[in-house]
């Protein structure tokens, strides 16, 4: 039913573009909510590491499918598996080990990609890694749209239920712990939500670019929001604007959709940043 409404709203006649437009709307909700936590909790490097390491699972899945005939282990499942494992490793190290967090982030990032590339190159059938790295929003199927609807439902429900706890843990983890909040649990929940979002959203913009939609619209929204839920709402709208504009431009000029979406977002962010710097200098000189 949700999809029927979105089909009716689509300004595109082309069915591929219509699916892409619906995917853009649905994914903007995930990006807006989870991305806001990524920005305020300052875990964008963790999100980047999770995104890149998911190539390990994708490579493993392709290898198992084409070399060993294990067809049920799809690349999506492989990416989900490796992203959740990466989130768990980084989360546990961050919470309990005395290792440097940035070192572990870098190791997980590089090792995940290395595993993925090794498996892809050992896969018997030719596989175009580009679609995983940069996304294929134009080839989103109706069943994948339903998966994104389910993800939206999970993320909205969890964030509404645990909003206060997640806000407290994001703002001041130590104080939250003193108030009896099981901060380890909520931190891992946040990382799992981030991993889940990254994997499913990588279908749209690819694992190399997904991080951009998790931080750019949220960074812009942060300039206009004084509450976290406002930041989520505003960043969802910005994300929707960027994905729709990027889709439209890529459609008109026959460009790759993923990078075009990211360049739209990055361009607006840079313009706003320059405007802010210019305005601050102007006020200071007056």
């Amino acid at each position, binding site marked *: 039913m949700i999809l029927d409404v979105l089909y009716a709203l689509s300004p595109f006649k082309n069915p591929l573009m219509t699916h892409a437009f619906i995917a853009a709307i649905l994914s903007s909700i995930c990006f807006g909510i989870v991305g806001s936590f990524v920005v305020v909790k300052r875990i964008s490097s963790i999100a980047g590491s999770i995104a890149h390491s998911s190539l390990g699972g994708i490579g493993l899945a392709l290898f198992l499918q084409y070399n060993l005939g294990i067809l049920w282990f799809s690349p999506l499942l492989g990416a989900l598996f490796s992203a959740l494992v990466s989130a768990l490793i980084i989360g546990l190290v961050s919470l309990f080990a005395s290792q440097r967090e940035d070192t572990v982030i870098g190791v997980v990032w590089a090792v995940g990609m290395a595993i993925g590339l090794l498996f892809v190159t050992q896969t018997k059938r030719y596989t175009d890694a580009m679609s995983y790295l940069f996304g294929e929003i134009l080839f989103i199927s109706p069943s994948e749209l339903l998966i994104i609807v389910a993800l939206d439902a999970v993320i909205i429900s969890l964030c509404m239920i645990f909003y*206060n706890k997640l806000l407290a843990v994001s703002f001041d983890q130590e104080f939250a712990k003193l*108030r009896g909040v099981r901060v380890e649990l909520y931190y891992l929940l946040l990382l799992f939500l981030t991993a889940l979002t990254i994997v499913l959203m990588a279908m749209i913009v690819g694992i190399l670019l997904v991080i951009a939609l998790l931080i750019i619209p949220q960074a812009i929204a942060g300039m206009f929001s004084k509450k976290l839920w406002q930041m989520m709402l505003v960043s969802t709208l910005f994300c929707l604007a960027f994905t729709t504009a990027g889709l439209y431009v890529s459609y008109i000029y026959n460009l790759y959709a993923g990078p075009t979406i990211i360049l739209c977002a990055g361009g607006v962010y840079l313009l706003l940043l320059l405007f802010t710097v210019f305005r601050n200098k102007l006020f200071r000189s007056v």
Partner: protein
Amino acid sequence: MKEQIAVAFEKVSFSYNNHLLFKAVDLAVEEGGFVSVIGPNGGGKTTLLRLILGLLKPRSGRIRVFGEHPKNARTRIGYVAQYSSFDELFPVTALEVVLMGRMGNSLTGSYNRRDRQKALDSLAEVGLAKAGSIAFSELSGGQRQRVLIARALVTEPRLLLLDEPNSNIDVAVERKFVNVLEELHRKMTIIMVTHDVGFASHLVRNVICVNKTLAVHPTSGLTTEVINDMYGHRMNIIQHDKICTPEEDE
């Protein structure tokens, strides 16, 4: 008379990364006292607070807060961390920050009407009654510090731990801030880490000097020689009373 002691250290040793910070130190802070903790950077001032909070475990010895293990006494401790540890751009209002002090063990962490009223009362107590809806990022350094104190107060503590509360406060608003501390001291024990020996000196009864060891002096016994000896080089003492001016910063 055990219950009259708010914080007790018995032969407490603590090391950080194989670096011995405290060796068999003893400490007793009486309930109702106002104690300031001074010492050079890296000497262990914040570590002392974190030990009292039960966030760090001593290598040996025993720590008791109101006669209990620090973890069990946490609900009676209000804690104001160093101001610099907060993200100034975090999208949160002053009221939301204070409400975090009412967060309990419930699964969702939702707040009821009483929690909101308590949070508003705490904001009023620190002189920020009208600041609840203002974004944390839009407040001045002094106001943010008072919001963090309100967050500690809303927990209804018997012991208040302050980590360098005057580090971001303008000299012009320092007097107002001292007045807030004076009011709070009527109701609770206060332990305050500071770099500034003269800050709120008329309230402070004892000074804990921390520099890899720990020594407690009455305020009157804190001479220039004692301070120079602790810091390891010559320090200048600046009198505060002459530079404080009462001024509204709301």
